[in-house]
């Protein structure tokens, strides 16, 4: 089992998450896809930490921080989604184009 395996795997997960973000209509689904992408990053971090040969824990520490940030982010995002739902009746990403040029 080499580092390459983990790299390819996390790349795959990351791209799937990315596809989810771009293609999904509902805001919540987009959030989930973002969680996927974050996990892919965590995996990569930890994998590098393990295979780097220095035996340092940096990879894992950063992974921990990523998780905390992810948690905060989900909380906030869902609050926004709630407001969106209440005011627009739907959370369909295509409708939210108030910023249109």
């Amino acid at each position: 089992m080499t580092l390459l395996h983990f790299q390819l795997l996390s790349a795959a997960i990351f791209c799937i998450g990315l596809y989810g973000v771009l293609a999904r209509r509902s805001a919540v689904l987009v959030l989930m896809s973002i969680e996927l992408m974050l996990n892919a990053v965590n995996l990569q971090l930890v994998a590098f930490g393990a295979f780097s040969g220095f035996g340092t824990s940096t990879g894992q520490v950063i992974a921990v921080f990523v998780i905390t940030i992810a948690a905060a982010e989900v909380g906030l995002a869902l609050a926004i989604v709630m407001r969106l739902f209440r005011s627009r009746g739907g959370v369909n990403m295509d409708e939210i184009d108030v910023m249109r040029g």
Partner: protein
Amino acid sequence: MEQAWLIPVFGFGAFAFLALFRKYLPGQGKHLSVLAIIAAFVAVWPVLFDMLDKGVGEHHFPRDWFSAGPLEVGWGIIVDPLTIVMLALITFVSVIVQVYSLGYMRHGNADDPRVGWYFAVHSLFSASMLMLVLADNLLLLYVAWELVGLCSYLLIGFWFERRSAAEAAKKAFVTTRIGDVGLLIGVVLLIVEFGTVDVIEIMNSLGDPGVNQAVVTASAFLVFFGAMGKSAQFPLHVWLPDAMEGPTPVSALIHAATMVTAGVFLVARLFPLFDAVESAQLAIAAIGIVTALMGAAMALVMTDLKRILAYSTMSHLGFMMLALGAGGYTAAIFHLLMHGVAKAMLFLSAGSIMHAAHDETDIRKMGGLRKRMPVTSAAFTVGALALAGIPPLNAFWSKDEILLAVAGGLNPVFVVLFLVAIVLSALYMGRAVLVVFFGKLKPENDGVHESPRIMAWPLALLAVLAVVTGFIALPIGYEGIGTFLVAPGDKPHAFEVVPVWLVASVVLALGGLALAYALYGDEDTSRVDALRERFARAHDVVANRFYMDHAYQWTIDRVVLRVSAFLALFDRKVVNDVGVNGPGLSAVEAGRRLRYHVTGLFADYGLGIVVGVAILGALLWIRSVTG
């Protein structure tokens, strides 16, 4: 001699004074101007005598006029026979005309409201003409040349309320201005080539080795082009007949004796330049004879008295140019003098007729005026006969001199044409005299009376002179005019008579008069009408001034105005709307178009980011690999 420069100063002073203070002077200061010109006339004689015993002189003033770079433009005067003769003619005729205008400008007993301005410009004109004659450097000569043009513009357009006068003035100035362009180019070429503006220096160094002959030839033709403009030679003559719109004394002074002869004077002053260039001389002679014939033909057909005299002036100028073309420097200048005196007198008498007959100029309405206006008709007849070339009157001698010069200098074709011209000039002069003064007095002209003394006396004086001046050609007291009026570098030639030409010219002149008498002698114009039908088409062509005016007007309307309209449109549309507004508007348009792709949807932006990241990553990676 050195004080000769004072002569023009009287005129300039009078002009300045009148221009500024004429409203506060009695009679708008007209007497002041007359006094100034008399002073100038008086000043000529001492200079003449001084020159006779001290010989030709050129006098430079210490202070340069201005200097730019290596070009030192000084100013000074030349006093040689040509100058003296011209000075005498100009001042004499100006005095006569100004005195005459005192009377002419008084309609009834009140002066013309702007008589002050009239006299102011008159003195400016004579002053600048004198400066032209005295000038010793090309630039000063050109300055005077233009000032003379300006004065003719102001005087022709004196009664500017009249639309025709304003147009005639504009036409005169523009046509002469076109000629002046040629002159200016020629002058600048000479200055650049010879590095100096002094006429004498240039004339002497024409033959120097280092001089580029092409430039000399080009400037010869260009200077002559300028002379053609001012002396109303063939292509640029259209303005002279229209210049009759101005007051008659103006025509007498400017369009008979002085301004129009400036062209001839210029060619005479720069004679060595034309002498050096064979082709130029031929051109001058050709243009001269063509103008002479055309002028005579048109004079024959015109019905307006002043127009007839104008065309006759054109014709005689042609004679002078012909003489110069043939190398007859003396003959040309001599004829210039004789013609100046006689033609001035003709114009003044025409003026007195108009003055008496409520500005009537159509000769068909005149007839038998000699009963009412004895002095004017006598003077007119003498002048007409003189110009027709009848001995012993003055123009006969000068025409004879020209004949000698042409016979000597040019090939026979010119001589034959010149003889034809002599006959024609006798013919139209005879016609004018007969139709206006002889025959029955028409009832409406009954009220005509002789002009007041102030106008009649100058006429009489000129008439006497027209008879007397011819004799200065004869070798009385000195070996004839040929020794006095000599082209620089030429050898003086004494007066000699070649019987065969003398007799020929007399016979032809008398023949012309006889023909005139036959046609116009008595009242019935049947013969004339018959002639007119037979040559109907030819008559129309000549009557319409060979359609020259229409041609010029057509070119101006079609070509010049059309081109300028197109250019203005081009300027506005292409250079301005496309060139300048173009970038401006296209920027605005681009902005508007780019607005649509900003959709506001999160997904589109996400896509943008991803694609961006991908490309950047690839680039960075390639660089790190190859780098």
